[in-house]
């Protein structure tokens, strides 16, 4: 069935003269170039601050086309699906070029975009975000996608206001070919190899695609990072009869990466390196990273395709995913900073950039200030972790732990680990049932409907990953130990049913709970395509139920940590609609609007889900309203889109835990009634200046800000003591930070008829605001000041980073051998001028001291310097 994707279809010309075909060919090549850039792959599955980032490593797919190819059936099917999957200039530039600066289209978090595989929404139920790392490295296999950005039509799902993307992995849709690819880069990974073999639908009624991938780096662009990833993919399809097909897709992308870090400007200046990474250190002369992320969540999807009639397709699917998400970090108890001396090196924190180890902590003591400055500048071992010493301290830390396992008199003596590496797990388990109907009711009307049932569990706990030379670690909470009443041995226990437990590598400890999230969705949509006008309208209804099941009885919350919590239920709905006015065959106007409510995500719903089942106060669904209008030009020489958009989010919740300087303890900080407004302009243009020279322009600017004064509740993390209630946060009109609000790119590309091309982009970024700390905009934070004090300003002002520009260069060539074999070589260089001094964002620390705001300064991210990507692909 020929699926029309959206309103931006190019009216195809059926003329078959040679010259016409040639320009068409070039035109299509250009489209293919744009179309082949796929959103995804290299975003690490972060649990926070994930964005819809397009693969920074462009995967140029540039097959050589001849007349035969255009005429031939298989190729044309492939091209048309690629055309349908084409991105518009703005979106592809935003993902591909702006992605390295953490740009987000319209400023939305990626929970506002629905990502699907074969119609199954794969956004993480716990946070709503799509983790592209789930199919990382499987670029070939996940190349076919249909997507729209913003509010629009999707034939698989109601989508979000950020859009919807459906990646097709139906075996019969792949063109029959074999691809081998090798890439070399200096970004997150160094080497990449991929192979894919597709049969397409064969005469015997079977189709399969097999793909494998490997990406690795002993050390990536940032020192101390490494990359170790595989990918595997299998898609099978059996055409039972002309109307029924069954498909099976199985894929996974196990990856292990050493993480980069983030630090204060002082640390960057002292080390002379804006990518200084505090997470790694030397062990026996080798580089070891303490923050290693490891993911493997394979998917198994069973699809049934039923062409009831050529105009009606019913697709029913069942899918299951399971796997592990792991993130390691150091933990320490009763420790002394691992350092040889000579001192004075006070402190217990092993992390080298702890605020007390920076010269600024000694600003009142010039001698110590110089001493620390000198160490930071000259001693690499000092400014990184010292693994050797952590082991050595552990190996001699003889200690007796009393009443182990709660048994009176059971005293165990051994080397107690002062430092360990712990592994924080978030293992997901999800089963999805989905059914879609797509029916062309008439020449002008297409109707879609679907239901989706998702039953998910997220099991969160932590394990001892490495005892670092010691014999055991005691499973008690060190902060609770400090706050406990004398004689109360239960308070500090993490697991009251197994008190005073000594844990070893592989043992679960600390916390253990499962989030259960059930979602039931139904949507319906109708599209009308008329000569002058297109309309569509869609609605959805959903029911979300979630609850927490605790597996450990926590000593601080013995009554509400173990077992099932109360079930939370939310009923939500959404409505959207839009229209396209086709003024001429080349000029279009569109307008879209959406209104929806959305249940809170499990991740944001509980004050401190690790230890208790208490909900964030005033938990409610959020409301989203959005609208956009666009003017689109489609002509042989100009393609452009100009869009104005406006979106409001209401009643979001914001929930964090951190150490609060004023209360001198860990707190849970829950804000409700958070509103945001995003409005702006997008312009994407492609202009054919000559048959060989093309110019592209993409500019987006917006204003994303908080539009309400939320109220915050602060509770002590260790007990339920309410530290503050109904406190107002005066952050209205502050910008939503951590990202660029203005981005622009102008590019030129020269295509030589002999199948090589070269191009350059000039990119500009501005209006980059720091992610602010809400607590600094409260009356209590400003208590020490009157409003004319300079101190007042410094506490509340929002920092804006300097604007910057970069230049990219790229080139490519392809060869065709023996009519069957194609070789493509593409080279791209980003940030040609090696600008390493531009910050792309940052955040204020949640821990702060009003009277000395520089004590806990903001932390910044910097744009990578000059990076390259070389891609060699072989296809037959």
């Amino acid at each position, binding site marked *: 069935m020929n699926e029309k994707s959206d309103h931006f279809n190019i009216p195809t010309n059926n003329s078959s003269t040679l010259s016409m075909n040639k320009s068409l060919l070039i035109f299509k090549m250009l489209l293919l170039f744009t179309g082949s850039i796929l959103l995804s792959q290299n975003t690490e599955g972060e649990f926070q601050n994930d964005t819809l980032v397009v693969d920074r490593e462009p995967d140029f797919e540039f097959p050589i086309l001849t007349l035969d190819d255009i005429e031939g059936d298989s190729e044309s099917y492939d091209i048309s699906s690629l055309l349908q999957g084409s991105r518009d200039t703005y979106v592809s530039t935003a993902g591909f070029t702006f992605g390295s600066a953490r740009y987000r289209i319209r400023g939305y978090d990626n929970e506002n975009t629905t990502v699907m595989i074969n119609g199954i929404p794969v956004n993480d139920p716990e946070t709503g975000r799509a983790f592209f790392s789930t199919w990382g490295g499987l670029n070939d296999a996940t190349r076919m996608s249909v997507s729209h950005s913003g509010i629009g039509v999707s034939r698989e799902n109601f989508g979000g206001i950020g859009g919807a993307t459906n990646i097709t992995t139906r075996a019969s849709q792949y063109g029959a070919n074999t691809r081998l690819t090798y890439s070399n880069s200096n970004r997150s990974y160094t080497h990449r190899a991929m192979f894919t073999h597709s049969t397409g639908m064969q005469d015997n009624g079977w189709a399969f695609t097999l793909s494998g991938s490997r990406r690795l780096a002993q050390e990536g662009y940032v020192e101390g990072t490494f990359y170790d990833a595989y990918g595997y993919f299998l898609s099978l399809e059996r055409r039972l009869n002309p109307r029924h097909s069954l498909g099976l897709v199985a894929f996974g992308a196990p990856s292990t990466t050493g993480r980069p870090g983030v630090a204060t400007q002082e640390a960057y200046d002292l080390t002379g390196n804006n990518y200084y990474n505090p997470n790694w250190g030397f062990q026996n002369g*080798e580089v070891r990273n303490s923050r290693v992320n490891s993911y493997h969540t394979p998917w198994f999807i069973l699809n049934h395709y039923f062409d009831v009639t050529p105009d009606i397709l019913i697709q029913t699917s069942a899918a299951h995913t399971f796997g592990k998400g792991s993130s390691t970090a150091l933990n320490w108890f009763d420790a002394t900073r691992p350092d040889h001396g000579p001192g004075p090196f006070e*402190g217990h924190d092993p992390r080298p950039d702890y605020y007390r180890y920076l010269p600024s902590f000694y600003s009142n003591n010039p001698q110590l200030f110089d001493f620390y400055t000198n160490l930071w500048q000259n001693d690499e071992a000092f400014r990184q972790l010292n693994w050797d010493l952590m082991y050595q301290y552990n190996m001699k830390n003889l200690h*007796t732990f009393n009443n182990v396992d709660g048994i009176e008199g059971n005293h165990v003596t051994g080397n107690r680990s002062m430092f360990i590496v712990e592994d924080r797990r978030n293992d997901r388990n999800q089963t999805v049932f989905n059914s879609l109907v797509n029916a062309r009711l008439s020449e002008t009307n297409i109707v879609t409907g679907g239901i989706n049932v998702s039953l998910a569990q997220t099991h969160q706990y932590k394990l001892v990953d490495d005892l670092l030379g010691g014999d055991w670690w005691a499973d008690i909470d060190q902060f609770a130990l400090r706050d406990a009443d004398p004689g109360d041995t239960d308070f500090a226990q993490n697991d009251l049913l197994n008190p005073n437990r000594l844990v070893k590598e592989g043992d679960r400890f600390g916390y253990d709970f499962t989030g259960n999230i059930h979602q039931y969705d139904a949507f319906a949509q109708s599209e009308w395509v008329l000569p002058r006008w297109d309309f569509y309208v869609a609605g959805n209804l959903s029911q979300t139920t979630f609850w927490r099941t605790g597996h450990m009885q926590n000593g601080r919350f013995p009554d509400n940590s173990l077992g099932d919590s109360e079930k939370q239920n939310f009923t939500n709905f959404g409505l959207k609609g839009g229209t396209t006015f086709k003024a001429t065959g080349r000029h279009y106007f569109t307008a879209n609007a959406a209104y929806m409510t959305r249940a809170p995500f499990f991740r944001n719903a509980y004050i401190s889900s690790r230890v208790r089942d208490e909900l964030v106060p005033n938990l409610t669904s959020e409301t989203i309203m959005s609208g956009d209008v666009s003017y689109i030009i489609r002509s042989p020489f100009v393609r452009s889109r100009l869009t104005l958009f406006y979106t409001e989010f209401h009643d979001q919740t914001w929930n964090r835990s951190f150490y609060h300087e004023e209360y001198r303890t860990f707190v849970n900080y829950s804000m409700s009634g958070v509103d945001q407004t995003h409005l702006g302009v997008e312009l994407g243009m492609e202009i054919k200046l000559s048959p060989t020279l093309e110019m592209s322009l993409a500019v987006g600017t917006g204003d994303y800000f908080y539009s309400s004064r939320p109220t915050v509740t602060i509770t002590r993390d260790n007990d339920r003591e309410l530290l503050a209630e109904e406190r107002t946060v005066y952050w209205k009109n502050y910008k939503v930070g951590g990202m660029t609000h203005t981005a622009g790119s102008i590019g030129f590309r020269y295509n030589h008829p002999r199948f090589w091309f070269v191009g350059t982009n000039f990119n500009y970024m501005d209006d980059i605001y720091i992610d602010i700390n809400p607590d600094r905009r409260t009356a209590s934070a400003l208590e020490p000041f009157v409003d004319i004090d300079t101190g007042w300003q410094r506490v509340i002002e929002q920092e804006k980073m300097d604007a910057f520009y970069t230049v990219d260069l790229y080139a490519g060539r392809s060869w065709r*051998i023996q009519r069957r074999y194609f070789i493509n070589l593409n080279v791209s260089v980003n940030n040609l001028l090696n600008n390493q001094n531009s910050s792309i964002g940052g955040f204020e620390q949640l821990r702060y001291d009003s009277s000395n705001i520089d004590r806990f300064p903001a932390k910044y991210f910097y744009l990578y310097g000059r990076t390259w990507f070389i891609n060699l692909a072989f296809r037959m």
Partner: protein
Amino acid sequence: MNTSDFRIKKITGLLLVLIVGLVACVDQDFDKPDPMDIPVGEVLTIAEMKQMINDTIDRIKFDADMSIYGVITMDGSSGNIYRGAFMEDATGAINLRLMSPGGLYQGDSIRINLRGTVLSEFAQMLQLDSVHTGNNVVKLATRIDLEPAQTDIATLLNDPSYEGRLIKLHDVEFSPADVGNKWADAANLQAINRNLRDCSGNSIIVRTSGYASFADEIIPEGNGSMVAIMSRHNNDRQLFIRSLSEVNLDGPRCSEQDHDNIISLAELRHLFNEEGATAVPAGTSVRGVITSDIDNGNIFPANAFLQDETGAIALRFSGNHGFKLGDEITIFAGGIQLSRFNGLLQLNNIPAENVTLEATGIVVQPVVATIDEILSNFQQFESMLVTVHNASIEAGGTFQFNKTLTDGTGSINLFTREDASFFGESVPSSTFSVTANVSIFNNEQLIMRSLDDIEQ
């Protein structure tokens, strides 16, 4: 097969090899480092180390490998001390100041390599500073319970060899002002010094930090034993408690203890060493009758005269006492000071709780004596109730302040306080007999009780 085909196969092969080769590993295997070597070097005892500080050297930063061995007798886990620990061996003890809190526990038997540490005096007590538990300390064993040294407050106040050591005191109690209060001010995180004393009158400070886990507990009122660490801060000797389980003050207080050991007032007077102040030995009581009269106001309400068959003595209570003329009282005098106040021997600062009223209305017969006899054997007569016959006041006038009394054998001052009931009354014009207490205020004097003491 033509060359193009071959080329294709070569390229394919090359790519395959490349790809297979990339199944190469990312090396993330790490070897365990060797254990840390903390050299022993020259071995010192704690006493030897402390002796390195003397009149000429007040600070030593160790830069060679030298070691001391010992057991940790107190750590910071109760919160009573911070970033420190006390370490003791057979020869003495030292206060350790650590680079970061924690890491050392009571009962740890350790060796410290002194390299990098600093030995110095802080507030007149030696401490070993900059001890890094990672780089300087080797732990040899745990749960070594050192026996505390049994001693007493007087020894602790005078013998410097106990500094830093774990000690145990017996028969001690907190002063009445401290009993019933909290050990420290936990609300404001302020430390408080409390007074611990024995029944011989010796007292020592017990200091508790506002951060101590037991700061909010109440100081017990009983008498008993206590284990603590002995410390010093300039001229103050102070004790740190490790845990309330080592404070066993549940017996009867000094003042409640057996009062069977009653000595005579003559013996009591004899105890005074005539140099400064002398504390009455523990467990000693005296009993007598009050021969002064606060109701008639010729004596300061906190003062009194006490007399038994053997002698008499002046009493100074810690506050207004309320004992009347003729009250028989027992005073638990253990630990109470004997001193002379402007020449008058007194039992000084007697707390009210030390006194028991035995009977009232007891009449003491005064001794008849001449002024000459009194002045010649003053110590025998001091504080006693006497009657002088044939007395006269030559100058006449009224009873106010100093009047000269003569009896033909000599003269003596007769003093009347402004608060006396008979202040301003006319003195008798002819001779009379007068009964009074013998006293001295730089100069000898007689103190009448009331006008009834005059007999004509």
